Protein backbone atom coordinates (compact mmCIF):
# COMPACT_ATOMS: atom_id res chain seq x y z
CA UNK A 1 0.00 0.00 0.00
CA UNK A 2 1.62 3.18 -1.19
CA UNK A 3 2.36 5.85 1.41
CA UNK A 4 1.72 3.27 4.12
CA UNK A 5 4.17 0.39 3.68
CA UNK A 6 7.18 2.65 3.19
CA UNK A 7 6.41 4.25 6.54
CA UNK A 8 6.44 0.85 8.26
CA UNK A 9 9.87 -0.29 7.10
CA UNK A 10 11.42 -2.35 9.89
CA UNK A 11 15.04 -1.65 9.05
CA UNK A 12 14.51 2.10 8.93
CA UNK A 13 12.57 1.87 12.20
CA UNK A 14 15.52 0.28 13.93
CA UNK A 15 17.81 2.90 12.40
CA UNK A 16 15.64 5.73 13.74
CA UNK A 17 15.57 4.05 17.14
CA UNK A 18 19.36 3.97 17.18
CA UNK A 19 19.46 7.66 16.31
CA UNK A 20 17.11 8.41 19.22
CA UNK A 21 19.28 6.38 21.59
CA UNK A 22 22.33 8.31 20.42
CA UNK A 23 20.75 11.72 21.08
CA UNK A 24 19.12 11.00 24.43
CA UNK A 25 21.24 12.57 27.16
CA UNK A 26 22.35 9.93 29.66
CA UNK A 27 20.52 10.13 32.96
CA UNK A 28 17.91 12.51 31.59
CA UNK A 29 14.21 11.59 31.58
CA UNK A 30 12.01 12.60 28.66
CA UNK A 31 8.30 12.53 29.44
CA UNK A 32 6.46 12.80 26.16
CA UNK A 33 2.68 12.77 25.86
CA UNK A 34 1.09 11.46 22.74
CA UNK A 35 -2.25 13.21 22.83
CA UNK A 36 -3.97 11.12 20.22
CA UNK A 37 -5.46 7.68 20.79
CA UNK A 38 -4.31 6.65 17.35
CA UNK A 39 -0.72 7.20 18.45
CA UNK A 40 -1.34 5.26 21.67
CA UNK A 41 -2.67 2.42 19.57
CA UNK A 42 0.22 2.58 17.10
CA UNK A 43 2.83 2.54 19.85
CA UNK A 44 1.30 -0.59 21.34
CA UNK A 45 0.42 -2.32 18.11
CA UNK A 46 3.92 -1.99 16.67
CA UNK A 47 5.67 -2.56 19.99
CA UNK A 48 7.52 0.74 19.63
CA UNK A 49 8.32 1.06 23.33
CA UNK A 50 10.74 -1.83 22.86
CA UNK A 51 12.69 0.29 20.40
CA UNK A 52 12.89 3.40 22.57
CA UNK A 53 15.70 3.89 25.07
CA UNK A 54 14.91 3.72 28.78
CA UNK A 55 15.05 7.48 29.31
CA UNK A 56 11.95 8.03 27.23
CA UNK A 57 8.55 7.57 28.78
CA UNK A 58 5.47 7.84 26.61
CA UNK A 59 2.43 9.13 28.48
CA UNK A 60 -0.93 8.43 26.94
CA UNK A 61 -3.18 11.46 26.64
CA UNK A 62 -6.97 11.80 26.38
CA UNK A 63 -7.23 12.08 22.61
CA UNK A 64 -9.70 9.26 22.17
CA UNK A 65 -13.22 10.58 21.57
CA UNK A 66 -14.81 7.26 22.43
CA UNK A 67 -12.90 7.10 25.71
CA UNK A 68 -13.72 10.63 26.87
CA UNK A 69 -17.43 10.48 26.09
CA UNK A 70 -19.21 10.53 29.46
CA UNK A 71 -21.51 7.66 30.43
CA UNK A 72 -24.38 10.14 30.58
CA UNK A 73 -24.06 10.88 26.86
CA UNK A 74 -24.17 7.16 26.00
CA UNK A 75 -27.29 6.88 28.15
CA UNK A 76 -28.70 9.81 26.16
CA UNK A 77 -27.99 8.02 22.88
CA UNK A 78 -29.74 4.93 24.25
CA UNK A 79 -32.67 7.13 25.24
CA UNK A 80 -32.87 8.51 21.69
CA UNK A 81 -32.74 5.02 20.21
CA UNK A 82 -35.70 4.08 22.40
CA UNK A 83 -37.90 6.92 21.14
CA UNK A 84 -40.73 5.77 18.84
CA UNK A 85 -39.86 5.84 15.17
CA UNK A 86 -36.16 6.52 15.71
CA UNK A 87 -33.39 4.78 13.78
CA UNK A 88 -30.09 5.57 15.47
CA UNK A 89 -27.02 5.46 13.22
CA UNK A 90 -23.59 5.12 14.78
CA UNK A 91 -19.97 4.46 13.91
CA UNK A 92 -18.87 0.95 14.94
CA UNK A 93 -16.65 2.24 17.75
CA UNK A 94 -19.58 3.19 19.98
CA UNK A 95 -21.62 0.01 19.71
CA UNK A 96 -20.03 -1.92 22.56
CA UNK A 97 -19.27 0.95 24.93
CA UNK A 98 -21.30 0.41 28.09
CA UNK A 99 -23.49 3.14 29.52
CA UNK A 100 -25.21 2.88 32.90
CA UNK A 101 -26.13 -0.58 34.14
CA UNK A 102 -23.92 -2.19 31.49
CA UNK A 103 -26.37 -1.31 28.72
CA UNK A 104 -24.86 -0.63 25.30
CA UNK A 105 -26.07 0.16 21.80
CA UNK A 106 -25.31 -3.41 20.76
CA UNK A 107 -27.37 -4.82 23.63
CA UNK A 108 -30.20 -2.39 22.87
CA UNK A 109 -30.10 -3.54 19.26
CA UNK A 110 -30.34 -7.16 20.38
CA UNK A 111 -33.40 -6.19 22.44
CA UNK A 112 -35.09 -4.75 19.36
CA UNK A 113 -34.01 -1.09 19.05
CA UNK A 114 -33.40 0.08 15.47
CA UNK A 115 -29.69 0.82 15.64
CA UNK A 116 -27.52 0.72 12.52
CA UNK A 117 -23.78 0.76 12.16
CA UNK A 118 -22.59 3.16 9.45
CA UNK A 119 -19.20 3.93 7.95
CA UNK A 120 -20.03 7.50 7.01
CA UNK A 121 -22.55 10.30 7.62
CA UNK A 122 -23.41 9.83 3.93
CA UNK A 123 -24.87 6.43 4.82
CA UNK A 124 -27.09 7.99 7.48
CA UNK A 125 -28.31 10.67 5.06
CA UNK A 126 -29.05 8.06 2.42
CA UNK A 127 -31.03 6.06 4.94
CA UNK A 128 -33.10 9.11 5.90
CA UNK A 129 -33.95 9.68 2.27
CA UNK A 130 -34.82 6.04 1.70
CA UNK A 131 -36.99 5.76 4.81
CA UNK A 132 -39.14 8.88 5.23
CA UNK A 133 -41.18 6.88 7.75
CA UNK A 134 -38.26 6.75 10.22
CA UNK A 135 -36.60 9.52 12.24
CA UNK A 136 -32.91 8.99 11.52
CA UNK A 137 -30.63 10.26 14.29
CA UNK A 138 -26.88 10.23 13.75
CA UNK A 139 -24.76 9.72 16.87
CA UNK A 140 -21.88 12.08 16.12
CA UNK A 141 -18.59 11.65 17.96
CA UNK A 142 -14.99 12.57 17.26
CA UNK A 143 -12.38 15.28 17.33
CA UNK A 144 -11.74 17.84 14.61
CA UNK A 145 -11.03 15.10 12.07
CA UNK A 146 -14.53 13.71 12.25
CA UNK A 147 -16.44 16.97 12.64
CA UNK A 148 -16.26 18.20 9.00
CA UNK A 149 -18.06 15.05 7.74
CA UNK A 150 -20.84 15.84 10.21
CA UNK A 151 -20.96 19.44 8.98
CA UNK A 152 -21.30 18.30 5.38
CA UNK A 153 -24.18 16.02 6.30
CA UNK A 154 -26.04 18.78 8.16
CA UNK A 155 -25.69 21.17 5.25
CA UNK A 156 -26.87 18.53 2.83
CA UNK A 157 -29.82 17.70 5.06
CA UNK A 158 -30.75 21.38 5.05
CA UNK A 159 -30.39 21.66 1.26
CA UNK A 160 -32.57 18.60 0.81
CA UNK A 161 -35.12 19.87 3.30
CA UNK A 162 -35.09 16.53 5.10
CA UNK A 163 -37.74 16.38 7.82
CA UNK A 164 -36.50 13.12 9.30
CA UNK A 165 -32.75 13.61 9.83
CA UNK A 166 -31.02 14.94 12.94
CA UNK A 167 -27.70 14.67 14.71
CA UNK A 168 -26.70 14.16 18.36
CA UNK A 169 -23.47 16.13 18.52
CA UNK A 170 -20.63 15.05 20.80
CA UNK A 171 -17.79 16.58 18.83
CA UNK A 172 -14.86 17.70 20.99
CA UNK A 173 -11.78 19.87 20.46
CA UNK A 174 -8.08 19.13 20.83
CA UNK A 175 -6.28 22.36 21.84
CA UNK A 176 -8.56 23.03 24.88
CA UNK A 177 -7.92 19.49 26.10
CA UNK A 178 -4.16 19.93 25.79
CA UNK A 179 -4.39 23.22 27.68
CA UNK A 180 -6.55 21.62 30.37
CA UNK A 181 -4.00 18.89 30.91
CA UNK A 182 -1.15 21.38 31.09
CA UNK A 183 -3.08 23.72 33.38
CA UNK A 184 -3.79 20.99 35.87
CA UNK A 185 -1.52 20.95 38.90
CA UNK A 186 -1.86 17.23 39.00
CA UNK A 187 -0.39 16.46 35.63
CA UNK A 188 3.08 14.99 35.72
CA UNK A 189 5.70 17.36 34.36
CA UNK A 190 5.65 16.88 30.61
CA UNK A 191 8.58 17.64 28.34
CA UNK A 192 6.76 17.65 25.03
CA UNK A 193 3.80 16.56 22.95
CA UNK A 194 3.35 14.34 19.97
CA UNK A 195 0.60 16.20 18.13
CA UNK A 196 -2.37 14.47 16.48
CA UNK A 197 -2.04 13.43 12.85
CA UNK A 198 -5.38 13.84 11.17
CA UNK A 199 -6.84 16.43 13.50
CA UNK A 200 -3.92 18.54 12.29
CA UNK A 201 -4.73 17.75 8.67
CA UNK A 202 -7.95 19.67 9.30
CA UNK A 203 -6.93 22.40 11.77
CA UNK A 204 -3.35 22.87 10.57
CA UNK A 205 -0.27 23.32 12.75
CA UNK A 206 -1.00 26.94 13.68
CA UNK A 207 -3.40 26.25 16.62
CA UNK A 208 -0.60 24.63 18.61
CA UNK A 209 1.72 27.62 18.39
CA UNK A 210 -0.01 29.51 21.18
CA UNK A 211 0.14 26.54 23.54
CA UNK A 212 3.78 25.80 22.73
CA UNK A 213 4.74 29.39 23.53
CA UNK A 214 2.50 29.83 26.56
CA UNK A 215 3.44 26.57 28.25
CA UNK A 216 6.95 26.49 26.82
CA UNK A 217 6.65 22.92 25.53
CA UNK A 218 7.65 21.55 22.11
CA UNK A 219 4.96 20.01 19.92
CA UNK A 220 5.77 17.74 17.00
CA UNK A 221 2.85 16.77 14.77
CA UNK A 222 3.27 13.16 13.68
CA UNK A 223 1.63 10.73 11.27
CA UNK A 224 0.34 7.38 12.50
CA UNK A 225 2.83 5.04 10.96
CA UNK A 226 5.65 3.67 13.12
CA UNK A 227 8.36 5.65 11.31
CA UNK A 228 6.35 8.84 11.81
CA UNK A 229 6.09 8.24 15.55
CA UNK A 230 9.79 7.41 15.92
CA UNK A 231 10.83 10.47 13.92
CA UNK A 232 8.58 12.68 16.02
CA UNK A 233 10.16 11.32 19.20
CA UNK A 234 13.60 12.09 17.75
CA UNK A 235 12.53 15.65 16.91
CA UNK A 236 11.12 16.12 20.41
CA UNK A 237 14.28 14.81 22.05
CA UNK A 238 16.29 17.30 20.01
CA UNK A 239 14.03 20.20 20.96
CA UNK A 240 14.18 19.26 24.63
CA UNK A 241 17.98 18.96 24.50
CA UNK A 242 18.24 22.34 22.81
CA UNK A 243 15.72 24.00 25.12
CA UNK A 244 13.40 24.86 22.25
CA UNK A 245 9.59 24.95 22.44
CA UNK A 246 8.42 25.08 18.85
CA UNK A 247 5.73 23.49 16.76
CA UNK A 248 7.28 21.18 14.19
CA UNK A 249 5.48 19.18 11.55
CA UNK A 250 6.71 15.65 10.87
CA UNK A 251 3.54 14.84 8.94
CA UNK A 252 4.24 17.38 6.20
CA UNK A 253 2.82 15.11 3.53
CA UNK A 254 -0.68 15.70 4.92
CA UNK A 255 -0.48 18.71 7.25
CA UNK A 256 0.12 22.37 6.42
CA UNK A 257 0.21 25.40 8.72
CA UNK A 258 -3.27 26.53 7.60
CA UNK A 259 -4.89 23.11 7.44
CA UNK A 260 -8.03 22.46 5.41
CA UNK A 261 -9.69 25.90 5.22
CA UNK A 262 -12.68 24.61 3.32
CA UNK A 263 -13.42 22.08 6.07
CA UNK A 264 -12.83 24.64 8.81
CA UNK A 265 -15.26 27.07 7.19
CA UNK A 266 -17.94 24.41 6.89
CA UNK A 267 -17.57 23.48 10.54
CA UNK A 268 -17.74 27.13 11.63
CA UNK A 269 -20.92 27.57 9.58
CA UNK A 270 -22.73 24.67 11.21
CA UNK A 271 -21.31 24.33 14.73
CA UNK A 272 -20.68 26.64 17.68
CA UNK A 273 -18.80 26.29 20.95
CA UNK A 274 -20.48 24.88 24.02
CA UNK A 275 -19.46 26.90 27.09
CA UNK A 276 -18.27 23.69 28.73
CA UNK A 277 -18.48 19.92 28.25
CA UNK A 278 -17.85 16.99 30.54
CA UNK A 279 -14.91 14.77 29.54
CA UNK A 280 -14.80 11.37 31.14
CA UNK A 281 -11.69 11.17 33.28
CA UNK A 282 -11.03 14.94 33.09
CA UNK A 283 -14.20 16.53 34.40
CA UNK A 284 -15.62 19.75 32.98
CA UNK A 285 -13.51 21.46 30.33
CA UNK A 286 -14.43 24.95 29.13
CA UNK A 287 -14.92 25.72 25.42
CA UNK A 288 -13.98 22.19 24.47
CA UNK A 289 -16.97 20.88 22.52
CA UNK A 290 -19.35 21.79 19.72
CA UNK A 291 -23.11 22.17 19.53
CA UNK A 292 -25.20 22.63 16.40
CA UNK A 293 -25.97 26.28 15.57
CA UNK A 294 -29.57 27.59 15.90
CA UNK A 295 -29.72 28.03 12.11
CA UNK A 296 -29.61 24.26 11.87
CA UNK A 297 -31.88 23.66 14.84
CA UNK A 298 -34.20 21.52 12.74
CA UNK A 299 -31.41 18.95 12.54
CA UNK A 300 -30.33 19.05 16.18
CA UNK A 301 -31.50 15.97 18.05
CA UNK A 302 -31.07 17.81 21.38
CA UNK A 303 -33.64 20.38 20.22
CA UNK A 304 -36.01 17.89 18.63
CA UNK A 305 -36.25 15.73 21.71
CA UNK A 306 -35.96 16.44 25.42
CA UNK A 307 -32.75 14.46 25.64
CA UNK A 308 -31.93 13.72 29.29
CA UNK A 309 -28.82 15.41 30.64
CA UNK A 310 -27.44 13.36 33.50
CA UNK A 311 -23.93 13.16 34.80
CA UNK A 312 -22.95 9.64 35.82
CA UNK A 313 -19.86 9.17 37.94
CA UNK A 314 -17.25 6.51 37.35
CA UNK A 315 -16.33 3.87 39.91
CA UNK A 316 -14.41 5.70 42.66
CA UNK A 317 -11.57 3.20 42.42
CA UNK A 318 -11.07 4.04 38.75
CA UNK A 319 -7.72 5.75 38.19
CA UNK A 320 -8.32 7.07 34.67
CA UNK A 321 -7.94 10.68 35.75
CA UNK A 322 -4.45 9.97 37.08
CA UNK A 323 -3.52 7.81 34.11
CA UNK A 324 -4.60 10.50 31.61
CA UNK A 325 -2.31 12.96 33.40
CA UNK A 326 0.63 10.59 33.46
CA UNK A 327 0.58 10.18 37.23
CA UNK A 328 -0.10 6.48 37.08
CA UNK A 329 0.37 3.69 34.61
CA UNK A 330 -2.46 1.24 33.81
CA UNK A 331 -0.97 -1.53 35.93
CA UNK A 332 -0.96 0.78 38.94
CA UNK A 333 -4.76 1.02 38.95
CA UNK A 334 -6.31 -1.50 41.33
CA UNK A 335 -9.08 -2.29 38.88
CA UNK A 336 -6.82 -2.96 35.89
CA UNK A 337 -7.08 -6.57 34.74
CA UNK A 338 -9.06 -7.59 37.79
CA UNK A 339 -12.47 -6.01 37.47
CA UNK A 340 -11.63 -3.75 34.54
CA UNK A 341 -10.88 -5.35 31.17
CA UNK A 342 -11.95 -4.49 27.62
CA UNK A 343 -14.89 -6.87 28.08
CA UNK A 344 -15.95 -5.06 31.23
CA UNK A 345 -14.52 -1.52 31.08
CA UNK A 346 -14.86 0.57 34.25
CA UNK A 347 -13.46 3.84 32.95
CA UNK A 348 -12.48 5.82 29.90
CA UNK A 349 -9.01 4.34 29.49
CA UNK A 350 -10.37 0.86 28.90
CA UNK A 351 -13.42 1.69 26.89
CA UNK A 352 -11.98 1.72 23.40
CA UNK A 353 -9.05 0.05 21.66
CA UNK A 354 -7.10 3.30 21.84
CA UNK A 355 -7.39 3.99 25.53
CA UNK A 356 -4.15 3.63 27.47
CA UNK A 357 -5.43 0.71 29.53
CA UNK A 358 -7.08 -1.08 26.62
CA UNK A 359 -3.98 -0.74 24.45
CA UNK A 360 -1.79 -2.05 27.24
CA UNK A 361 -4.18 -4.93 27.93
CA UNK A 362 -4.56 -5.91 24.30
CA UNK A 363 -0.96 -5.60 23.21
CA UNK A 364 1.34 -5.16 26.16
CA UNK A 365 0.26 -7.00 29.26
CA UNK A 366 2.76 -9.75 28.77
CA UNK A 367 5.29 -7.38 30.26
CA UNK A 368 5.72 -6.62 33.91
CA UNK A 369 4.95 -10.05 35.27
CA UNK A 370 1.20 -9.67 35.22
CA UNK A 371 -1.15 -12.60 35.32
CA UNK A 372 -3.45 -13.27 32.37
Amino acid at each position, binding site marked *: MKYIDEFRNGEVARGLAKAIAAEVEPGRAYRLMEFCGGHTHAISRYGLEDLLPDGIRMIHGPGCPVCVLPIGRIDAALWLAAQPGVTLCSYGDMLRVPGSERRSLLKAKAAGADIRMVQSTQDALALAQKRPDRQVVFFAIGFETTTPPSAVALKQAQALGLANFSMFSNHVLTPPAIAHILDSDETVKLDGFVG*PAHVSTVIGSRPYEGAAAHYNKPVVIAGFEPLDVLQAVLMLVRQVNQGRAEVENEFARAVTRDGNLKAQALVAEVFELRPWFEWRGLGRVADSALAIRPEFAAFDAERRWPVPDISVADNPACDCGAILRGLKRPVECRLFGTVCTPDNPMGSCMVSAEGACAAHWTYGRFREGETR
Partner: protein
Amino acid sequence: MCLALPALVTELLPDDLAKVELGGVRQKISLALVSDVALGDYVIVHVGYALAKLDPEEAAKTLALFEEISQQPTEAR
Protein backbone atom coordinates in the same frame (compact mmCIF):
# COMPACT_ATOMS: atom_id res chain seq x y z
CA MET B 1 -6.95 8.89 16.61
CA CYS B 2 -9.18 8.86 13.69
CA LEU B 3 -8.22 6.22 11.26
CA ALA B 4 -7.47 7.94 8.02
CA LEU B 5 -5.60 6.44 5.13
CA PRO B 6 -3.96 7.56 1.90
CA ALA B 7 -5.88 6.19 -1.07
CA LEU B 8 -5.52 6.61 -4.83
CA VAL B 9 -8.28 8.46 -6.70
CA THR B 10 -9.25 6.17 -9.58
CA GLU B 11 -12.52 7.71 -10.76
CA LEU B 12 -14.26 11.06 -10.41
CA LEU B 13 -18.04 10.82 -10.03
CA PRO B 14 -20.89 13.36 -10.10
CA ASP B 15 -22.16 15.03 -6.89
CA ASP B 16 -18.67 15.57 -5.51
CA LEU B 17 -17.98 11.85 -5.17
CA ALA B 18 -15.04 9.71 -6.23
CA LYS B 19 -13.80 6.14 -6.24
CA VAL B 20 -10.55 5.47 -4.44
CA GLU B 21 -8.36 2.43 -4.13
CA LEU B 22 -6.22 1.10 -1.32
CA GLY B 23 -4.29 -2.16 -1.66
CA GLY B 24 -6.62 -3.27 -4.45
CA VAL B 25 -9.79 -2.53 -2.48
CA ARG B 26 -12.09 0.15 -3.87
CA GLN B 27 -14.48 2.49 -2.08
CA LYS B 28 -16.75 5.39 -2.93
CA ILE B 29 -16.02 8.56 -0.97
CA SER B 30 -17.09 12.19 -0.83
CA LEU B 31 -14.88 15.05 -2.06
CA ALA B 32 -17.04 17.70 -0.37
CA LEU B 33 -14.21 18.73 1.96
CA VAL B 34 -11.47 19.17 -0.65
CA SER B 35 -10.97 21.02 -3.94
CA ASP B 36 -9.12 20.40 -7.21
CA VAL B 37 -8.74 16.67 -6.84
CA ALA B 38 -7.63 14.93 -10.03
CA LEU B 39 -7.35 11.32 -11.13
CA GLY B 40 -4.11 9.86 -9.87
CA ASP B 41 -3.99 12.08 -6.76
CA TYR B 42 -3.70 10.46 -3.36
CA VAL B 43 -6.14 11.69 -0.73
CA ILE B 44 -6.36 11.11 3.01
CA VAL B 45 -9.67 9.32 3.61
CA HIS B 46 -11.61 9.32 6.91
CA VAL B 47 -15.18 8.05 7.44
CA GLY B 48 -15.92 8.13 3.74
CA TYR B 49 -14.55 11.65 3.06
CA ALA B 50 -11.31 12.96 1.60
CA LEU B 51 -9.78 15.31 4.19
CA ALA B 52 -6.77 16.48 2.21
CA LYS B 53 -4.58 15.72 -0.75
CA LEU B 54 -1.37 13.93 0.08
CA ASP B 55 1.70 15.87 -1.06
CA PRO B 56 3.96 13.39 -2.90
CA GLU B 57 6.95 15.73 -2.77
CA GLU B 58 6.73 16.11 1.01
CA ALA B 59 6.26 12.35 1.34
CA ALA B 60 9.42 11.73 -0.67
CA LYS B 61 11.34 14.32 1.36
CA THR B 62 10.22 12.72 4.62
CA LEU B 63 11.22 9.24 3.48
CA ALA B 64 14.60 10.49 2.28
CA LEU B 65 15.15 12.11 5.67
CA PHE B 66 14.32 8.85 7.43
CA GLU B 67 16.76 6.96 5.25
CA GLU B 68 19.49 9.48 5.98
CA ILE B 69 18.96 9.46 9.72
CA SER B 70 18.62 5.70 10.00
CA GLN B 71 21.86 5.13 8.15
CA GLN B 72 23.96 7.61 10.08
CA PRO B 73 26.69 5.90 12.02
CA THR B 74 26.01 6.48 15.70
CA GLU B 75 28.40 6.22 18.60
CA ALA B 76 27.29 4.34 21.63
CA ARG B 77 27.10 6.69 24.61
